[in-house]
């Protein structure tokens, strides 16, 4: 194994992850190679970039508002599910009741379900002919409901193993020292699950930011107030009337950047706490 394994892994990662991401950067920044007619003489090549293309791609009407909408809705949804994820994971690890296995498997349903199936479900349930008389089409709340559904499993499953592995004696110790249940939770439980919650938040946020299938129908394509970045990307990249693809690539790069920042913050929080727990 050894180096050959590492080479294989690096090659696979390059093919599956790095090249596609490099391609979107290349397109968004208008990168091109000029070989100066020198064939394979690499030193004669030069790299050209076109940042004007990137900025003009972002100045397409609706681009920034779509990005802003995505960030805000994803941020709120990830926050709600980070809290609910802890609550659900807590109940699943601490309580024993009938039907627990069923509830546990229901949490994974959004994982397993093709997101477009969720999209169809939501347009049926909260569409114009809603059987519960709740029309969320073209409303931000509709986006929120769909994204909450899709991101819940990330939040529960990121926290659950940490709660399961947690030292129950430490909580008992806090109680014998006089702490109430609430205080025990805040002062003993929360600090130890914080890295997991941060990573749950980042996962849910990233998933919500790029989610398309489940919101594609309820957002009503063409409605400005519910055009998320992902919907904007889809409409732009299928718009061949003008160079919509460049603007799609530019928005995609911004989304990548936002995700990078969120994951970095979450990773730093986790690293900072873990380095003290396990030096």
């Amino acid at each position, binding site marked *: 194994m050894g180096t050959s394994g590492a080479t294989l892994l690096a090659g696979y990662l390059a093919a599956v992850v790095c090249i596609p991401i490099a391609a979107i950067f290349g397109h968004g920044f208008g990168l091109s190679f000029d070989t100066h007619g020198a064939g394979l003489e690499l030193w004669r090549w030069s790299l050209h970039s076109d940042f004007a293309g990137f900025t003009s791609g972002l100045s397409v009407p609706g681009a920034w508002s779509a990005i802003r909408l995505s960030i805000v809705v994803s941020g709120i949804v990830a926050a709600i599910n980070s809290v609910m994820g802890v609550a659900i994971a807590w109940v699943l690890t601490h309580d024993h009741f009938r039907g627990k296995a069923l509830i546990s498997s229901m949490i994974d349903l959004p994982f397993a379900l093709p997101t477009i199936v969720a999209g169809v479900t939501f347009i049926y349930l909260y569409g114009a002919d809603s059987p519960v008389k709740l029309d969320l089409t073209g409303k931000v709340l509709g986006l929120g409901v769909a994204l909450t559904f899709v991101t819940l499993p990330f939040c529960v499953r990121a926290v659950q193993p940490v709660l399961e592995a947690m*030292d129950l004696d430490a909580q008992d110790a*806090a109680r014998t020292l*006089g702490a109430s249940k609430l205080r025990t939770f805040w002062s003993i439980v929360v600090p130890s699950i914080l890295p997991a919650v941060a990573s749950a938040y980042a996962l849910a946020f990233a998933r919500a930011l790029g989610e398309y299938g489940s919101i594609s129908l309820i957002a009503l394509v063409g409605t400005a107030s519910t055009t998320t970045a992902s919907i904007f990307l889809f409409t732009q990249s299928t718009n061949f009337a003008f160079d919509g693809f460049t603007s799609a690539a530019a928005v995609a790069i911004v989304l990548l950047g936002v995700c990078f920042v969120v994951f970095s913050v979450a990773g730093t929080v986790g690293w900072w706490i873990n380095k003290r727990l396990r030096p």
Partner: protein
Amino acid sequence: MSISLDDVAKSYGRSDGKFALNGVTAEIPSGSLTAILGPSGSGKSTLLKVIAGLEQPDRGRVCIEGDDVTDLDARFRGIGFCFQQYAPFRHLTVEKNIAYGLKVRRRPRAEISKKVAEMLELVQLGDFAKRYPAQLSGGQRQRMALARALAIEPRVLLLDEPFGALDAQVRAELRTWVKNLHDQVPITTIMVTHDQSEAMEVASQLVVLRDGRIEQTGAPGELYDHPATPFVHEFLGPTTTVGGEVVRPHDLVLRRQPGPGHQGKVTGVVALGFEVRVEVALDDGSSCWVQLTAHEFAELTVTVGDAVAVSPR
């Protein structure tokens, strides 16, 4: 503070109807250091948790200094509890671990830092105040847990297998240290252990537990010399059977034949440094072993096959 247990029972709702505790009644005198001794599964940890209020008994009462605390929440009992794995607050430094109970009690900051300094000195962890539990050795973690429990000036100190997770040398050191600590800070202390030598060395009173019931209670020497049941006899030290009677192997006298007592032949000699075990097949078909000091053995010089006589001292 004295502790009294009256018919305490706890079943954990097991389907086989077996009790973890099956009617335990005991008096723990004020200021004593009592060891609850028993094999694993005898209910000793459960008993400790019931006293601390971390487990609710199915029936029976728990009183501390005459106050019935059975229905009192653990946080109001004023009990210091040290867990088997020390249960450190891993995200807090040693000093913050020790200060936890005082912070919860909203003591003034100056008082907290004074008390923490005092505790750090008591458990000899002054140089480690700013360390995190993960940076401590097992013995240091144990002492931190003790300081954390003692900082709240508990009425009672409960120790669950306090030396169980330590290696042999640290174990021996800590035993002596805990005994000295108890002399310095004479709080009523109960420790749970499955190790009889540990219990006999540290404790002034033993409670032997078996299958959720008390087998015998008393001073270590009393239990060792006058065990009430064969179980206590065997659990507190080595035993062997001679002529149908259970005796301690060091209470037997071994002589070359002719001699008084049961006649037999030596079948094995095991030298363990200061002690020598001589295995004897008796003429009645049974076998026993005799514990001799290395000196006694040197004078006797028996080897396998020699005809010997075994008699009680």
